[in-house]
């Protein structure tokens, strides 16, 4: 059977039951493809074994870039390229450059991080998401288990594991 095509879905009503179920199912050796929720469930990423998001690092690096660009631009324009005496101040009036530097740091950090987030999470207006169950953006948590990656586990065993861990429904879903 092909990977990433045929799934068993467990539908959960409650976030605490879901968290418990993720733990139980992973303990039995079944690999979970992904869990879809209508809202962020705290601790779910840890239970699923995801590594912490590295987006804050991206934000920091873009912020450093913003600081550097802003200071370089201001020193170049005011001190090197075209000097003008303004109120008798030093051409490189460093304290005066802080506000613009701060703003550009924030601007680049925010846009850089969001850009990386959009690209890495494949968020774009023309994206066609695979929806496992329409209720996963409404009131249900949907746990998807790829049948092919769990080929060694009996199908019935997966369904039983889902049911016994608190899934209110167990369905199957295939994509072309």
């Amino acid at each position, binding site marked *: 059977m092909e990977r990433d095509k045929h799934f068993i879905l467990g539908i959960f009503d409650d976030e605490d039951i879901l968290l418990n179920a993720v733990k139980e199912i992973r303990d039995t050796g079944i690999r979970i493809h992904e869990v879809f929720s209508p809202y962020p469930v705290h601790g779910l990423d840890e239970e699923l074994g995801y590594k912490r*998001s590295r987006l804050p690092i991206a934000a920091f690096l873009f912020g450093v870039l913003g600081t550097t660009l802003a200071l370089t631009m201001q020193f170049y324009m005011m001190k090197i390229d075209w000097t003008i005496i*303004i109120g008798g101040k030093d051409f490189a009036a460093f304290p005066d450059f802080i506000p613009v530097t701060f*703003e550009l740091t924030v601007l680049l950090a*925010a846009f850089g991080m*969001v850009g990386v987030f959009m690209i890495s999470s494949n*968020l774009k207006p023309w994206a066609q*998401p695979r929806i496992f169950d329409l209720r996963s953006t409404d*009131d249900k948590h949907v746990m998807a288990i790829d049948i092919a990656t769990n080929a060694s586990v009996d199908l019935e065993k997966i369904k039983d594991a889902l049911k016994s861990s608190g899934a209110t429904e167990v369905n199957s879903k295939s994509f072309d």
Partner: protein
Amino acid sequence: MQVTSPVRDPLVTGGKTYKDVTNDIARHVEGKPTVGWLLGLAVSLGALLIGSLALVATLWEGIGMWGLNKTVGWAWDITNFVWWVGIGHAGTLISAVLLLFRQKWRTSINRAAEAMTIFAVICAALFPLIHMGRPWVGAIWALPLPNTYGSLWVNFNSPLLWDVFAISTYFSVSLVFWYIGLIPDFATIRDRATGMRKTIYGALSFGWDGAAKTWMHYESVSLILAGLATPLVLSVHTIVSFDFATSVIPGWHTTIFPPYFVAGAIFSGFAMVLTLMIVTRKVFKLEDYITIGHIELMNIVIIITGSIVGIAYITEFFMAWYSGVAAEQYAFVNRMFGPYWWAYWSMMTCNVISPQLFWFKKIRTSIVATFILSLVVNIGMWFERFVIIVTSLHRDYLPSSWVMFYPTITDVGVYLFTFGFFFTAFLLFAKFFPVINMAEVKAVLKSSSEKKIN
């Protein structure tokens, strides 16, 4: 059976389930517009159209259409600018600062407050933009672009230029923050819709699927954006206050301005949030989400910031006297008893005295009283800026230049235009976008609401 947390009052009342949250909020996006909404839109569009005449007159004839004169070179335009920027601050405060402080009550009001921020900042930005006279060539004057003057760059020592960077960064970061929050809710609407609506909300939702991994990144992005927006919002009004504080005009030349302006901004912003939310919860029947508890908490923020503003007024006076500078002392006595005494006393009554009424629990939990006082605060905060700007300028260095400022019909019209724009945009937002953050409300539903357990 009802289970309520013994320690805290519930944030969402009425025993709502997750399904109810989706239905209650998505219903307005999907249903036909109500009569009240259409009436509101008609009035706002009317104001927008009438106001646009004044805007066109300003652009066609020039700044001479305004009541400015040689002595009072800044008046309604910058008063309105500071007023609108200040209003915008509440949105960021609610969504970013309260997120960092883990205040869960923000979830019901942050979406609308952020929308308000964005529209208010657009209204604010209009004034400096049109005050340039020829805004279509203004980009060259305001941005560090290569040019044929030398290259003569923009002046990085000027707070007016810092403002260009501060306001545009604030606007774009707020817009991104707001939109990121909207994506999961657009997906909810997409998954309930068919046909054309599904296509539109599908595109707006950026292909969101609610995967745990995406949520993890999303939460991380929200937290960092909140961390960035918090100093940003403080910097914006600080820099706005530098426009005045770095000058040598008596009454402006004071170091107290940055904190004083930031407190004032939050004060007026919360008042505007209350004005809008009290109407919105009524029109869209969202009383279970925006509860009296929310209104009371916002009123407490108003007492605190209003009192800070009051202390700032008194400190200014003390410093004017204590400094021993005659010009400074005259400026403040002139505010109180000069020709603009009425503006000064309106400001004092609206900003310092009226919010103190919120110390009474009966008043701060009364919707009618809150609504009236929220309007009073906004009027007071407009007068504050008017007092600072016009009364300081109208007594110039030479008594022969002392004049009064009289607004023209064009001044009033441009201000009306911003109101028309603001309310039109807010009404369109309230109809076509989910007015409450569904995903965030659902996330706090289990821990802090009256729950039905079967």
